[in-house]
């Protein structure tokens, strides 16, 4: 074979092998590792799957944080001013986690509808809202004085 043509053949076959391997890997990896985001209203409406990890976002309900005195368990409620979902987390919460602030919790829903969180993300500074939370809360405002705890 002509050397140039042979060269091209090597190149093309390498590209084909590598890219198909890559596509296979990507498909395999994406299958289990993407998490959908749900606002609390969707979770209460039963739209969120219970067999896999989801992201839940909203505001932490005022006076809803209950910390254990003996270990690191914390339970709090997350709301989008339409519905609220309880979240249980064991571990150290981010510095900017607080009542009345935006939060994204990642984890799976248990039978009682509580989210068992594996990770809790808060915003990074006092003016900043996670975009998903901002979108979920768009057009909804906190009813003055009303408690969001069901």
């Amino acid at each position, binding site marked *: 074979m002509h050397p140039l043509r042979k*060269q091209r053949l090597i190149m093309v076959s390498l590209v084909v092998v*590598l890219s198909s391997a*890559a596509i296979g890997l*990507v498909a395999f990896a994406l299958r289990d*590792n993407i998490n*959908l985001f749900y606002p609390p209203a969707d979770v209460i409406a039963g739209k969120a799957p219970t067999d896999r990890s989801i992201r839940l976002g909203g505001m932490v309900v005022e006076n809803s944080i209950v910390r254990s005195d003996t270990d690191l368990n914390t339970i709090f409620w997350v709301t989008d001013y339409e519905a609220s979902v309880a979240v249980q987390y064991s571990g*150290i*919460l981010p510095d900017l986690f607080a009542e009345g602030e935006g939060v994204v919790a990642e984890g799976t829903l248990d039978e009682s509808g509580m989210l068992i969180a594996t990770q809790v993300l808060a915003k990074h500074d006092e003016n900043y809202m*996670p975009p998903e939370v901002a*979108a979920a809360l768009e057009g909804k405002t906190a009813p003055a004085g009303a408690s969001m705890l069901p």
Partner: protein
Amino acid sequence: MIPELGHVALIIAFVLSIGLAALPMWGSVRSSTSLMNLAPTLAVGVTTFVAVAFALLTVSFLQDDFSVAVVAANSNSLLPPIFKFSAVWGNHEGSLLLWVLILSGWMSAVAMFSRGLPLVMVARVLSVMGMVAVGFLAFSLLTSNPFERLLPNVPADGNDLNPLLQDPGLIIHPPLLYMGYVGLSVPFAFAIAALLGGRLDASWARWSRPWTNVAWGFLSLGIMLGSWWAYYELGWGGWWFWDPVENASFMPWLMGTALVHSLAVTEKRGVFRSWTVLLAIFAFSLSLLGTFLVRSGVLTSVHAFAADPERGLFILIFLALVVGGSLLLYALRAPAVASRVSYTAVSRESLLMVNNLVFTVATVIVLLGTLFPLVMDAFSLGKYSVGPPYFNAVFVPLMALVMPFMTIGPLSRWREDSTARWLHELMVPCLGVLVVALVLAFLGKDGFNLWIALAVLLAGWVLLGVVKDLWRRLSGAPDGRLRWRTLNPSFLGMTLAHTGFAAVVVGAVVVTQLNEERDLRMAVGDVEELGGYRFELLSLGQQPGPNYLADQATFEVSHEGQVFAILVPEKRRYFASGQIMTEAAIDASLWRDLYIALGEPIGENAWAVRLQYKPMVRWLWLGALMIGFGALITALDRRYRSQVARHAVPDTGALGVAG
């Protein structure tokens, strides 16, 4: 008055950059030497005025001029002066000004160090960089003016800098990262200039190569610092999160890695030319994409200072123009510059091609994972997030795939080699490394660990290849003396960078596999054992800082009955913003880090505490340092300088074959 002067300086820089973008380019079309000669002067002019604007913004910060909006939003009279200085780029407007400052700095560097290049080349390169500068100066002036005033309602004091950013790491991380990010505009400009001139030969690659290596070296150092900063400042003890913003800087690095290697082939052998040009275009486009992702506020991140759709749109349009324009040019001109040199399947060219393919695929994979949630969201198909498991699952095998070739590459010959020779060269390293890997993997206290065995095997393989290559160069003189002169900066840089890569791999795998972490409640007097170390909480207290009040916990750390460290993690409350910040306490060493961070107080006299034992985590950053410095060293090679002194290759060989 000072902010207005700064604003004027920025406008002058903008006008000069328009001149730089237009005049020398026009001169190159009309073969007008006088117009082309304007390029270096205009480049230095842009730099001067951007530097003046930057200096004046810095003065506003240092003087606590809270009538300036960015100062009021990001500084405070109590902020220590060094952080007032770094606060200049701890915000959207200021960091964009830094971007432009560094871009113009690179332009001036090209103007100064390219006196030996053909005038038309210099004119085109600087003109292309001028176009980029026009885009970013316009962006700064139109959407993110750093000198905007808050008149007449001047606040009495500022909002303070985000406490996360009040850290020495922030003083150097953004400038270094930007040096790399923006530095990729130089090979981009060289590529565009080459396409415009139809001149794409070995001498072009030789001009472009030192710039690329230096930019890529800075990018490596910048990413390394970012990772280190996240490790000690965010309080989780993680060193890489596959956060979209990290990916934004990692993608140009991956593409740059391919470019650095592809340029080597183009310089030495004259092949892969159009591919090299494409890589240069992509690497810079990914820099711009990163800027878009970080600056447009589409991402949740510590780097996303503010969400403003107008800004995002501006960068998106600019990005489309740059990528679209250069790809169009590429489509029109690339066929004219294709190479006519052959090589065989068993040759250094093929091995470097493997590098290129792997790093390109890695870039695409990271790009996919980063953009997937954004694309799905843009088309209202749901809000997804793609997490570390995806990236690890695809990225780790790719890196493992490239490592076997890393050893053979430097030892192999150009054009044609033989597998028999490879076998002869590498048989001993191969067996040696297998033994070492098996022995080391059994030494862990939890018995055999397959992942560590693999990492040591691959890293050792790379390292032994490096040693073998070094020895091969030094030995072989007829009089038996070592030939030190064969160790030129190019070779030393490569050796250092490859060794660093091996160190990163070992560090990453070991710390991932053997990391021990415990979140728990500890009261005064409580004792906890972790990784063979004993942590005792001695006392709790409070300590005021310049602009914060800190809760402190004092830990005594001992090992085998021997007390060797007192660690004092803090929880700080910053006065101005009321923001809470974790300040981890770390006992660092080459073989392991001990890491303590405070959570929140639990009841009386007790805190939630995170203890971590992180073996060999330092290797990651040491390795990355070696990669970065290795790249910088290569630029010292004499052949890049003698090239300039020789007044370049005559124009006649424009499309000819080199080497």
